[in-house]
């Protein structure tokens, strides 16, 4: 029995009215870079930068829609990593990846403004800013109010958080620009099979012609694992050491297609997720190579971008997904009088602990293996001195003005399949039935498909009906996209502001290669979630299936073909010099500014202090007091270290390690009370040092015996 439209109208009518409420506009001009600096080098140069961007707890963990939790602590810290390249003409390009769920156009343009103000010669068109797509990091920075408001259980556009992110991302690029040195480089690709899978096979199999394999998979893999884009593409960069003159491994820029969803939506920790493990894994490897050649360790940077991840999930086990909240009567004392209260009920703490722990193990297992593949590829490559030119082409499209002429819709619509979540990440409203009987249509496939194909959005059944989508919901969705093409040697990168499905990416790459032409066409790769965020990009065939990816392709079935077309057109205008055409300005409405992130509290009344650790189950648990409420962590520096009692000066893990989770559990004397939980790899006698961002501990705990080989962390602590 179906009662789709009325049910949907009723369900989210209030959301629409809230979206319709006016909010002050924000103007985001593009910025043309200053003329290239005077030629200060004859060689191809590169420089790396890395700046921590972990905000204080309290922000929403974006990416899982309203299922995203409010951050209560952190595990692997979040960073902005940048590789700045400069050719012999002075033409520069910044390849930047941030440990965030998405990059917004607002964030991209504000970083570019900051970089131009800092005289880096890197403007809007020379900044390829993309996200790893970890779903355990904040949003609150979008130019579209719907994404600010409904991307986690904590919503709102936060100007202070956005400004902090902009400053830190720009600082990472500036480090790279300031550190430019002659470089030897090499591109390479390696197939990585078995760790990812296509989550929407029904949609992928609709493509005509049937998608070709993108490599040679090992025998025995199931179809969903064979259909992925297995290519790990990597640019190895060795830099000339200023003291010795020798070229030492310095870092890499790589692209691999994989959703940043190692963690379940139930997690409450800020976490760089799978990509954080891969980033750190290759960085440790490069540092070991540097050390072996007499170089300084601890400086390697792995800028790890996401490829065509739109329909590609990590191959985590099913028990790593926590069930979505369910409607239940709230449990209360069994009284003959109490009125029963219905509400959403999350999984129990114990159940949540089990699925979160399973996800953590999967992140470590998958991440370390992909990191090993990246290290093997890095070792395979022989960096060479090159005379590459760096060229780029860039276009901003306002779909409300140009959409129809480009063959797509002029108004963004979300589909009913968006509300129910992806095949492996259902939301609480998936399969929702009004009165338990009437299907509200919040699911993928036929229930989400519009049988009347006459409209611009074709097979998409608009979430709230066409009128409400057009006049209310769309006001909170993005209308402008930025598309960049960047040529580095014989590689063309396409920065697409969406989550590109595997087949959409293939078609874009084919269009780029065909447009470049020549006897030896360049390679091409798509970087997803780059320079902005327009949700998904599915092919027309995939769109017709109205799975989550198709329902979230905002501008209709022609979107992927449009992006392939304009990408190919941009190839003709690739240039190292100034761009033609005047700068543009985007008018955005991110929503009313709100204080999502805690503002800085009063200074602490007592110095930082460390309690005696305890052993709970297999886990060393310790509390300490450090920092004001709302204070950012000591950037890139550990707060605590866990060490063997016999060797307290060499921490086995710090609070930026997958075995350590840190929770903000209270406030004492105006200092944040933190609780750290470390899972030792083997039983032993351990101490904890409070580093508080310094090189030497300001306090060292008594020793404690703890640990086992089972490796299952306890449930999260009760939070205030």
């Amino acid at each position, binding site marked *: 029995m179906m009662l789709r439209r009325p049910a949907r109208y009723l369900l989210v009518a209030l959301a629409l009215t809230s979206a319709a409420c006016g909010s002050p506009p924000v103007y985001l001009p593009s910025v043309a870079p200053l003329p290239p600096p005077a030629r200060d080098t004859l060689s191809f140069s590169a420089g790396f930068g890395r700046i921590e961007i972990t905000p204080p707890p309290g922000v929403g963990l974006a990416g899982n829609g309203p299922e995203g939790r409010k951050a209560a602590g952190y595990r692997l810290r979040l960073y902005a990593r940048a590789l700045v390249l400069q050719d012999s003409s002075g033409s520069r390009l910044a390849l930047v990846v941030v440990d965030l769920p998405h990059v917004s156009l607002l964030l991209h343009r504000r970083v570019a403004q900051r970089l131009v103000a800092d005289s880096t010669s890197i403007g809007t068109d020379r900044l390829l800013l993309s996200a790893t797509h970890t779903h355990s990091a904040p949003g609150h920075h979008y130019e579209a109010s719907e994404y600010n408001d409904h991307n986690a259980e904590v919503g709102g556009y936060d100007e202070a958080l956005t400004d902090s992110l902009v400053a830190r991302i720009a600082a990472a690029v500036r480090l790279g620009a300031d550190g430019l040195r002659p470089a030897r480089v090499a591109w390479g690709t390696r197939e990585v099979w078995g760790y990812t899978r296509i989550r929407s096979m029904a949609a992928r199999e609709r493509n005509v012609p049937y998608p070709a394999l993108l490599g040679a998979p090992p025998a025995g893999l199931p179809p969903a694992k064979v259909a992925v884009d297995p290519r790990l593409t990597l640019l190895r960069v060795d830099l000339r050491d200023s003291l010795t003159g020798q070229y030492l491994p310095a870092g890499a820029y790589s692209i691999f297609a994989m959703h940043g969803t190692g963690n379940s939506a139930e997690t409450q920790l800020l976490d760089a997720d799978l990509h954080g493990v891969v980033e750190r894994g290759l960085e440790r490897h490069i540092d070991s190579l540097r050390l072996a050649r007499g170089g300084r360790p601890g400086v390697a940077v792995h800028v790890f971008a996401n490829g065509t991840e739109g329909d590609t999930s990590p191959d985590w086990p099913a028990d790593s997904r926590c069930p979505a909240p369910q409607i239940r009567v709230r449990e209360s*004392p*069994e009284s*003959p009088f109490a009125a029963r209260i219905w*509400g959403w009920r999350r999984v129990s703490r114990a159940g949540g602990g089990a699925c979160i722990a399973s996800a953590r193990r999967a992140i470590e297992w998958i991440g370390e293996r992909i990191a090993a593949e990246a290290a093997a590829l890095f070792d395979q490559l022989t960096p060479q001195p090159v005379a590459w030119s760096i060229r780029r082409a860039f276009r901003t499209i306002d779909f409300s003005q140009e959409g129809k002429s480009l063959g797509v819709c002029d108004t963004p619509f979300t589909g009913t399949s968006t509300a129910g979540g992806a095949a492996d990440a259902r939301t609480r409203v998936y399969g929702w039935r009004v009165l338990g009987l009437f299907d509200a249509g919040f699911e993928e496939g036929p229930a989400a498909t519009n049988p009347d194909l006459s409209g611009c959005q074709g097979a998409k059944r608009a979430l709230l009906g066409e009128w409400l989508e057009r006049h209310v919901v769309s006001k909170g969705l993005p209308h402008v996209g930025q598309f960049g093409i960047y040529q580095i040697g014989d590689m063309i990168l396409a920065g697409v502001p969406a989550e590109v499905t595997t087949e959409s990416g293939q078609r874009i790459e084919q269009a780029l290669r065909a447009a470049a032409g020549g006897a030896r066409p360049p390679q091409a790769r798509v970087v997803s979630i780059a320079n902005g965020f327009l949700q998904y990009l599915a092919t027309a065939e995939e769109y017709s299936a109205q799975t989550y990816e198709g329902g979230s392709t905002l501008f209709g079935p022609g979107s992927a073909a449009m992006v392939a077309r304009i990408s190919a057109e941009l190839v003709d205008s690739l240039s190292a010099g100034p761009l033609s055409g005047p700068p543009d300005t985007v008018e955005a409405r991110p929503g009313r500014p709100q204080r999502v992130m805690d503002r800085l509290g009063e200074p602490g009344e007592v110095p930082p202090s460390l309690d005696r650790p305890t052993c709970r189950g297999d886990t060393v648990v310790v509390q300490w007091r450090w920092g004001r409420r709302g204070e950012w962590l000591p950037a890139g520096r550990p707060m605590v270290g866990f060490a063997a009692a016999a060797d307290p000066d060499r921490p086995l893990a710090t609070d930026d390690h997958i075995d350590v989770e840190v929770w903000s559990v209270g406030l004492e004397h105006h200092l944040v009370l933190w609780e750290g939980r470390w899972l030792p790899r083997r039983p032993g006698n351990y101490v904890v040092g409070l580093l508080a961002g310094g090189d030497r501990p300001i306090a060292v705990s008594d020793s404690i015996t703890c640990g086992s080989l089972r490796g299952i962390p306890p449930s999260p602590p009760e939070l205030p």
Partner: protein
Amino acid sequence: MNRRLGIRLGCCAALIALHGLAPAAQAQLRVESQVALASRQLWRGISRSSRPSLQSSAAVGWRNRSVGLATGAWSNVELGNGESSDRTIYGLGRAGLGELDWWASASVYDGHTAITAGVLRYTYHGRPARGGLDHGSNTTELWGTLDLRGELLSPRLDVFWDIERIDGFYLAGSSAVPVLAWPFSPFSMVYLEGELGLNLGQRVHPGRPGSGYFDDTGVTHARVSLQVPLFHAGGFAGRLAYGAQLGFDPATRAGLDGDPTRGRLTHLVEARVTFLHGGGDR
């Protein structure tokens, strides 16, 4: 020691015992209190007070995986002076506490099913001279509940047996179904709740006023109420409810006594704030 004092002392002892258990089992301790402003006091479909009233309750419960204990109290304060045609427990002419009830229960749980048995003591504090009920009307009931807390409907059956003054049983079946769910924070929902009452012997016997509550045996009333969330912050939840009741038994009709054609439909409006600590729900 009379029965009334014994029940009160029993409830107090249970409260103290539960507080003693609390430190050892913090996660299983649940405390709930409610304050409601209601347009009338409806009890088993009967308008016991047709004046607006302030109803408050407090309960504390302890539960491990399969067993639970709980105790609490419920009170009703009639507001305003009332009019001569109003029904009342406290009495007309001024506002005051009309009823204070104590209860204690033990439950067993199996998945989403709860079976509860308890004792319930009704005490009345009104002024008989002004039409109210006093201690002479106090009584005690045993009650049992089967509660199926499923994802939908969540039916519940309550059985009450007066062991002091009134003969027979009273059964109440109730259920609720979510109608609208807000999929974004604060994740509240609107739901419909229904109740059907069945009298099995609690009728007034001819010549014995006060010997029962209803005129007939059988279905007493049916009520449907729409529950709308107002706010949800911390452990506090505010809701507004509108209920419409169809009275089948003459005693459940809000109109004047003795006229079965009037007052078949009774309206109830209620604003309620609940504080609930523990239970792990959101």
